[in-house]
């Protein structure tokens, strides 16, 4: 099973996990981290410690906004630990796809699949084309 770490501004990460658990039930090896009130170093240390705690598994780190401090910190971690994969723009469909597929797909297929599901879920809805 691939582990997940969601790193976001405010309470978004914790709420995404909480919301996902109301849809697909309880799960483990998926962690929420906020950048609120943290220095870049403190955030780095926290994410790094979680990666260490999951060192028996491959890990995907999700961040909310490319260009923000969460993505900066996680990109820096990926630079130091290339086996980690960082994906930006985390949303609920992406997270659900991750939780559903992480036990069956290979790591490379999983990263592609969650990005695709996240992107495909962003669309302008048109009732006439349903």
């Amino acid at each position, binding site marked *: 099973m691939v582990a997940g770490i969601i790193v976001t501004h405010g309470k978004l990460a914790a709420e995404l996990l909480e919301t996902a658990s109301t849809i697909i039930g309880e799960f483990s090896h998926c962690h929420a981290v906020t950048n609120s*009130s943290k*220095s870049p170093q403190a955030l780095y240390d926290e994410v790094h410690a979680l990666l260490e705690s999951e060192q028996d598994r491959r890990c995907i780190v999700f961040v909310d906004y*490319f260009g923000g*401090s969460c*993505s900066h910190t996680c990109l820096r971690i990926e630079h130091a630990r290339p086996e980690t994969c960082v994906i930006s723009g985390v949303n609920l469909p992406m997270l659900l796809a991750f939780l559903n597929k992480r036990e069956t797909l290979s790591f490379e297929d999983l990263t592609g699949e969650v990005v695709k599901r996240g992107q495909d879920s962003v669309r302008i809805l048109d009732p006439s084309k349903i």
Partner: protein
Amino acid sequence: MPLSLVRIDDRLIHGQVVLGWARLLKPDRIVVANDRIAANLWERKFYTASVPPPVKVSFLSIEETTVELLNNLFTNESVLMLFETVKDVHTMVQKGVQLEEINVGGLHYRQGAEELLPFVFVTEEDRVLLRDLVKSGITLLAQDIPGNSPVVINSMVV
């Protein structure tokens, strides 16, 4: 150089700067004044990628920034200037750069640092350096994003 904002923020370029301050002030250029980043190509590429055009980005060492400011270079552009630490700004002011106001936008908790505001924690060293800046006549305005009210913290560091 018309400096539209001089900001101390341990995160340097990030959402509050790009979506908050740069959207309001519309600078021509963001200058990151930082020795470590100026000397590291990967760090420079990494920060550049997070700034949407047409805003330009430069990475200068503290020494280069000091020289540019003392010689009034960049005069045709409005500049938003970022520092990671109090020490870096202090070094520049000690060398003769004159500033009226510094935006203190983010100094987060570090070992031994004391809280002035939820986004401003200062170590004893910071406090000494900030006191020096206040003595040079600089107003220290703590303000994370433009929508929140600025707080003058001069009296908190003396």
